[in-house]
C-alpha cells in the first residue's frame, strides 16, 4: 500500500513539473525522462548482467518505428500497434540474443553493433514504409477523453513508462533472478556450477531490457510526432554507456544520476566551450574509468560511509 502511494506520488510530481515549463523546456524534460528510462534498462543489461550490447538504442528505434508503421502506415488500431510493436521488438531481441549468448567476450558487442548498423541501412532503404532518410512525420495520438495528448498533457505517459521500467527492473533485481544475473556477470562458470542456466539468464535479460527500450521508443515517437534515422545512430549508445559509467555502473541510482547529469550538463557547458563539448566529454569518461571506477555514486557511497564511521567511533569498519 505504501509502495503504491510512493509510485503514485512520483507519477503525479514528475508529471506536474512538466506543466510549469515553456514548450522548449518541456520537450527537453520529456526527452530527459526517456533518456533516464533507457539508462535504467541499459544499466540492468550492461551494468548488472555484464552484457556489452550496442543495440539498446536500436531497439528504442525499433519500438518507435514499429508503433508508427503499424498504426499509421498500416492503419491498425493504436492498441494493436503497441502490442504488435512490443511483440516485434521482443521477437527481434530473441533472434539476436539466442544465437549470440553462445559467444564469449566481446563478440556480443560486435553482433549488436552490426545489428544496429543493419537497422540503419534497412531504415534508409525502406521506401514509403520507413520514409527513408526523411523519416516519418505528420501522425499523432488520438485524444484521450477529449484531452489532446500533446505538450504537457503527454508527460504523464512518459513518466508512466519511466516508472514502469524502474518498477520492473527493481522487482527483478531484488529477486533470485537479479542475483543470478550478477553471478553470471562475475563468474559464468561458478554461476553455472551453482545451477544457474547461464544462457537462459542472458537471453531473458537481453529480451526484457531490449523490449523495455522499445517501449520507451514508442513513447518517444509521440514527443514531436516525428521520427527519423539519425535519432537512433550509434553515437547515442556511447552516450548512454558513458552516462552509466559516470553515474556508477550497476547501480540504479547511478544510472539515473548519470543520465540526468550528462543530459542536462550539455546545455550548461555548450554555451561556455562551444564545439569542444564532446571532446571534454570524452576526457571525462576516460578519467572516470581510470580514477572513479565506481562512478559518481561510488563517491557518494564513500562520503556516507565516512560519515557513519565518524558518527560511531571505536567500531571497526
Amino acid at each position: 500500500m505504501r509502495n503504491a502511494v510512493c509510485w503514485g506520488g512520483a507519477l503525479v510530481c514528475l508529471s506536474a513539473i512538466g506543466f510549469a515549463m515553456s514548450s522548449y523546456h518541456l520537450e527537453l524534460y520529456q526527452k530527459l525522462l526517456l533518456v533516464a528510462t533507457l539508462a535504467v534498462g541499459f544499466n540492468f543489461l550492461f551494468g548488472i548482467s555484464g552484457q556489452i550490447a550496442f543495440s539498446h538504442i536500436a531497439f528504442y528505434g525499433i519500438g518507435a518505428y514499429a508503433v508508427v508503421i503499424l498504426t499509421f502506415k498500416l492503419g491498425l488500431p493504436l492498441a494493436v500497434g503497441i502490442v504488435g510493436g512490443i511483440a516485434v521488438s521482443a521477437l527481434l531481441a530473441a533472434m539476436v540474443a539466442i544465437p549470440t549468448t553462445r559467444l564469449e567476450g566481446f563478440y556480443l558487442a560486435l553482433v549488436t553493433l552490426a545489428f544496429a548498423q543493419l537497422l540503419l541501412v534497412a531504415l534508409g532503404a525502406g521506401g514509403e514504409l520507413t520514409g527513408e532518410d526523411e523519416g516519418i512525420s505528420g501522425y499523432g495520438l488520438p485524444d484521450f477523453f477529449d484531452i489532446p495528448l500533446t505538450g504537457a498533457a503527454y508527460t504523464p505517459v512518459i513518466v508512466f513508462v519511466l516508472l514502469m521500467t524502474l518498477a520492473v527492473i527493481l522487482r527483478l533485481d531484488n529477486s533470485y533472478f537479479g542475483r543470478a544475473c550478477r553471478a553470471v556477470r562475475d563468474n559464468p562458470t561458478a554461476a553455472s556450477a551453482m545451477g544457474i542456466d547461464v544462457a537462459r539468464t542472458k537471453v531473458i535479460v537481453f529480451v526484457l531490457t531490449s523490449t523495455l527500450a522499445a517501449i520507451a521508443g514508442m513513447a518517444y515517437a509521440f514527443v514531436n510526432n516525428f521520427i527519423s534515422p539519425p535519432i537512433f545512430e550509434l553515437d547515442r549508445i556511447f552516450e548512454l554507456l558513458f552516462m552509466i559509467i559516470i553515474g556508477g555502473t550497476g547501480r540504479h541510482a547511478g544510472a539515473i544520476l548519470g543520465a540526468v547529469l550528462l543530459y542536462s550538463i550539455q546545455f550548461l557547458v555548450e554555451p561556455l566551450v562551444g564545439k569542444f563539448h564532446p571532446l571534454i566529454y570524452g576526457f571525462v569518461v576516460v578519467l572516470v574509468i581510470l580514477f572513479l571506477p565506481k562512478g559518481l555514486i561510488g563517491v557518494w557511497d564513500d562520503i556516507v560511509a565516512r560519515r557513519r564511521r565518524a558518527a560511531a567511533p571505536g567500531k571497526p569498519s
Partner: protein
Amino acid sequence: MAEIGELLVSAVASGCIYGLMALSYLLIIRPTGVINFALGEWAMLGAFAAVALGSDLLVPALQLPHFVSLVLVIVVIAAIGALTEILTVRPLIEKGAPLLSPVLALLGVLVISLQVGTLAGGTEALPAPPPFGFRRVELGVFAGTPQAFYVIATAIVVFGAAWLFFERTIWGKRFEAVAINRRAAALMGINLRAVGLLAFGGAGAVCGIVGVLTSGGSGAFYQMGLPLAIQGFTALVIGGVGRVEGAILGGLILGLVEAFAARYLPIPSSLVLGVPLVLLILFLLVRPTGLLRAREDGI
C-alpha cells in the same frame, strides 16, 4: 573479362585496406585481449595528417613529398597508440581491473580522437593527391588506378613484415607467449609493459598507413572512422583472430564479396551497405573462430 579484371583490382585494393585494419585489431587483441574500437578513428586522424602534410589543403606551407609524409604519419599515429596504452590501458590492467574497463576507456579515446579529427580537419571530405597520379595501369587483364596497385603493394609489404615479425623474431614469439598465457609469460621474464606498448604502437602505425592510403583514394573525412572500424573487425572475424594470415584473408573475402554483391546482386544499392554486416553476423554465429585457427603448436 576485362571488366572482371578491373573489378578484381578495386575489390582486392579495398580488401587490403580491410585486411590492414584487421591486422591492427589483431596486434592488440592477440597479446592483451582488448578490442580497441578507436582504431577506425586513428585511421581517420592518419588520413587528415596525410592531407595536412602532403597536400596544399589544411597546411598549404608544407606539401612534403609523399614518402616523407607517410613516415611522419606512421610515427605520429604510432605515438598516439603508444600514449593511449601508457595513459589509459596500462594503469587499468595493472590495477587488475576487469578486461571490460580498458575497452570502455578506449571508447572514450574513440570519442576524443573523433572530436580532435573533426576540430582539426573540418567536416568536409579532403582529398590528398594520389602519389602516382590518375593514370590507368594495365597488367594483362587487370587494370586500375595506380592508387589501387599502390594499396595492394603496400599491404603486401606490411603483411610480409608482420609475418616475419611473428614467425621470425623473438618479439613475435613474446607476443604469442603473452597471448597464450599472460601470467606464465611474465614469469618467464617477458616484459608485459613492452609487449603492450609495442602492440598499441604497432596497431597505431598500421592505422596510420591505412589513413595515408585512403586519403589518396576517397579522401579524408571525419566520418570515415566507424566504417573502417566495422570493416576491420568484420575482416578479423572472417579470417580468425589467431593469425596474421587470417587478417588479410578476411579482408580480401570481405572486399570481394562487397564488390561483387554491389555489381551483381539484384538488390537496391542502399541495401548493399548491409552485405558486410550480414556477413559479419553470419560468421559470428556459424564460425566465431574464423576461417583460420590460432596455431597452438611450435611456438
